[in-house]
């Protein structure tokens, strides 16, 4: 076998390894388990799909996660897009410090971010709930949206905006009709990233949640008592929706190109 073929087989092996837990998750959503633990295969059933929303705590944790993700994504996209425009389009005093802060927010370990936010909330005697979770999620997503938008802004031809101004467009009209559509792919990518980061987060959230339960927190809390198969089903559905959106997005991008 040539080294190229060998490497190809190896790459596929790594891909299969990375995907195998996904297969396990999907499979055990169909497991007709009788005992408390859900680790051995006991037959096929669609029962858990029918009873998907029958665990109240789990359902409300999922709803909480989705709500927090929607709100934090909306806030992050506005903040990150503005900052991405500032960094990509303008030269200003404090740019170095701003870049440093953006970098620091990406590279601060999640654990430290969560712990420091809790230190602040404890010192300020602030109760922890969905609001503090949302604040934290905006914080850790902000840099990712900023960097994504900035990268898009840098590829933009400034002559386009100049042309709009020469044609008598107000700054706002220029932004709405020229700049925003041009950077939209970056903004959309940033929004998807922010949403995914928010729905997925466990570590930071575990520090600032108070008694509010999100989907990942609920799952970890139920590890000891045994994870109900509904969790696998929800994971499977989220996985399916995510993959469909990603594939549709890349097809749309290819059509545009």
């Amino acid at each position: 076998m040539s080294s190229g073929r060998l490497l190809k087989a190896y790459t596929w092996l790594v891909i299969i390894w990375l995907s195998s837990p996904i297969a396990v998750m999907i499979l055990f959503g169909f497991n007709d388990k009788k005992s408390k633990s859900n680790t051995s295969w006991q037959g096929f059933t669609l029962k858990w799909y029918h009873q998907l929303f029958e665990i109240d705590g789990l359902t409300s944790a999922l709803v909480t996660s989705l709500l927090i993700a929607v709100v934090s994504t909306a806030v992050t996209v506005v903040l990150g897009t503005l900052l991405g425009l500032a960094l990509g389009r303008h030269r200003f005093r404090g740019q170095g410090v701003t870049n440093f802060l953006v970098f620091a927010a990406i590279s601060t370990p999640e654990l430290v971010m969560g712990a420091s936010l809790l230190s602040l909330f404890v010192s300020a005697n602030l109760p922890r709930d969905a609001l503090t979770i949302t604040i934290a999620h905006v914080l850790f997503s902000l840099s990712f949206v900023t960097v994504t938008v900035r990268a898009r802004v840098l590829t933009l031809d400034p002559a386009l905006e100049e042309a709009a101004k020469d044609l008598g467009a107000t700054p706002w009209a220029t932004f709405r009709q020229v700049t925003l559509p041009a950077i939209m792919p970056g903004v959309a990518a940033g929004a998807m990233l922010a949403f995914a980061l928010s729905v997925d987060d466990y570590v930071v959230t575990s520090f600032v949640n108070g008694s509010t339960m999100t989907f990942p927190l609920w799952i970890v809390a139920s590890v000891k008592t045994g994870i109900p198969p509904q969790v696998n089903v929800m994971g499977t559905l989220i996985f399916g929706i995510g993959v469909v959106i990603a594939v549709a997005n890349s097809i749309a991008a290819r059509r545009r190109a």
Partner: protein
Amino acid sequence: MRRRLTPYLLALPSWLWLAAFLVVPLAAMASVSTQTGNVVDGFAQTFSFGNYADALGRYSTQLVRSLLYGGAATLAMLAIGYPVAYWIAFRGGSRKSMYLFLLLLPFFVSFVLRTIAWGFLLADDGILFGTLKGWGLLSPDFHVLATSFAVIAGLTYNWLPFMILPIYVGLERVDPRVIEAAYDLYATRFTVFRRVVLPLSLPGVFAGVLMTFVPAVADPINAQILGGTNNTMIGNIIQVEYLTNNNYPTASALSFTLMAVLLVGIFAYARALGTENVLEAAAR
């Protein structure tokens, strides 16, 4: 005048957010780390730096273990990931983006859920080892869960794509003409790799190490789900001290020490490479 103000107005909301929820909390944590007291009577600032000595004395084992596990996982990711990145960058052809997409598939599953599913696979009576034991191919005592290997394997599994992607980006940027030139000058394949490809891919390797080592060292989930009771990492200790014991000063001192250890490394790294490069690699 208005135009001059524009960048400041654009940046202002994010500045406020980053100041209020990144900078101020870190300062609050620094302050809490030298306080004394308890959660019932409240904490007071006493500049008791002994908290650090106390915390480190009690938990140095877990701190060192975290650095070792994180380091071992990072090395494993590098060894496993580099050939994959190399093959996709140079031999992926028109299917490059498909391969990258397949590598990113796990990210469509929640982090805790895929760690748990990975635990399913490694379970003593699970579909893998349970079946092998049923066939008599493994001794009934054989187990992987609750060992250091399980934790390191979990960390490796969870961050591998973050190692592969930056290396791929680095390799992708290598100009094929440079490689051709090396062959024209009678370099062997190994020499081309060692003297041309490898050096040019190092920025990607650095970015990959940065993006995997830091979260792996500070991760509490893999140790909690896969590690049993003997593989507690610093992340678990900080969580327990904060959330269960309400021992905020010790927990803050530990978090600060962890951050200092990691960030000193990061910023030394970023200085050598330039933050722009690292950020760019992170954005891809």
